[in-house]
């Protein structure tokens, strides 16, 4: 049977993390599933967790009056949904909605925050990984802002 720890170990986000750290993290993890159309996170809501997407697809949306929800990015298997749990004031800035049946591992951010505070080595491991994700998304956002196809 697949244990949570083995699922975590196989997820790209945790690649190279020490087993003792993984064991600590696994204590805050649980399997979840969302049906197509179901909201996973809501803008303005309290951000006390994040998700490792295993199957399916999640859309990050922002609702724009008159034009409805605009999808900014979609996340697939191997990707991470949510970093607001790590940064004050721990509130979601966007909506996250399952576009199809989505399976994920949810990690309890509140529980993790305490562990990261106590164990700064683990904290540094987490910050490195999230800095990578934030950088990638910033780069993507910049490219989207350039609207390169407009001129091509």
């Amino acid at each position, binding site marked *: 049977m697949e244990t949570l720890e083995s699922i975590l170990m196989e997820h790209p986000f945790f690649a190279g993390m020490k087993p003792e750290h993984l064991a600590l993290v696994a204590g805050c993890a649980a399997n979840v599933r969302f049906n197509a159309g179901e909201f996973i996170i809501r803008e303005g809501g309290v951000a006390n967790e994040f998700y490792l997407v295993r199957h399916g697809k999640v859309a990050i949306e922002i609702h724009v009056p008159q034009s409805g929800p605009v999808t900014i990015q979609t996340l697939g298997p191997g990707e991470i949904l949510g970093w607001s749990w790590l940064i004050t004031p721990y509130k979601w800035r966007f909506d996250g909605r399952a576009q199809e049946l989505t399976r994920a591992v949810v990690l309890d951010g509140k529980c993790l925050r305490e562990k990261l505070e106590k164990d700064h080595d683990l904290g540094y491991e987490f910050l490195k990984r999230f800095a990578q994700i934030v950088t990638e998304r910033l780069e993507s956002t910049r*490219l*989207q802002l350039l609207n390169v196809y407009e001129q*091509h």
Partner: protein
Amino acid sequence: MFTNNTEVMAAALGPGPMVPAVFRVQRTKKETSDTFTMELLPEEGPQEFAFAPGQFNMLYAFGVGEVPISISGDPARRSVVVHTTRDVGPVTSALRRLKPGEGLGIRGPYGTGWPAAEARGADVVIAAGGIGLAPLRPVLYQILAARQHYGKVVLLYGTRTPADILFRRELEQWRSRFDLEVCVTVDRAVGSWAGMVGVVTKLIPRAPFDPHSTIAMICGPEVMMRFTVQELEGRGVATENIYVSLERNMKCAVSFCGHCQFGPAFVCKDGPVFRYDRIQPLMAVREV
């Protein structure tokens, strides 16, 4: 220094290097709000038109002007010349307005092609941005026609919005094949789009190919190509296995007018398809 292209040069259409041959529009198909595909037949009756995928023709709209446009048709279908382009200026706009039976001028084919032969035995990553899918379609046809000679074949296509997706029906057909991985992503989506949203470069890290045995072919806006190359390099693809197609101003397409110069290269003759390692230092120079 660059690819020797003499054989192709000799085959060019038209009575002289600067004089177009007359073709007629067979039909024009609207692809998206501002792109269209034209099928053209020679005025003088059936005639074989051979080209290498990646090459372009100079299309002349009567009295308006001439522009370089890549060939988007199937290289195996030699009776007809196919072009897909975007209506962005007076010439493309005039071309779009041509009705079936009306005439236009063609010179070509010109330039270098995609490395379909070099890619045999390897995985192939085709990364297209926006209208950049048009010059890549012929090489995909070519590869699919000899599918058994290639490893994994991946098509990554990014465009602005779902409404801007080119060759939508064909993409759906390709996606249903088991021997072709097709990923389509858009920069921004509203409404019912259930596909991927995000920049095309971000498809690279998770695309299924062996970076040490891959030939990558990229066409799109220069910024998109630069970032795609970075992601490919990040996966371990060597720059000598990466090919890009460049766009520059062209008036003659036969290296006489000087407009398309890119460092030591004439894009019309030494390009438009370049092996990336050969132009990499120039790609980093502004306004070169």
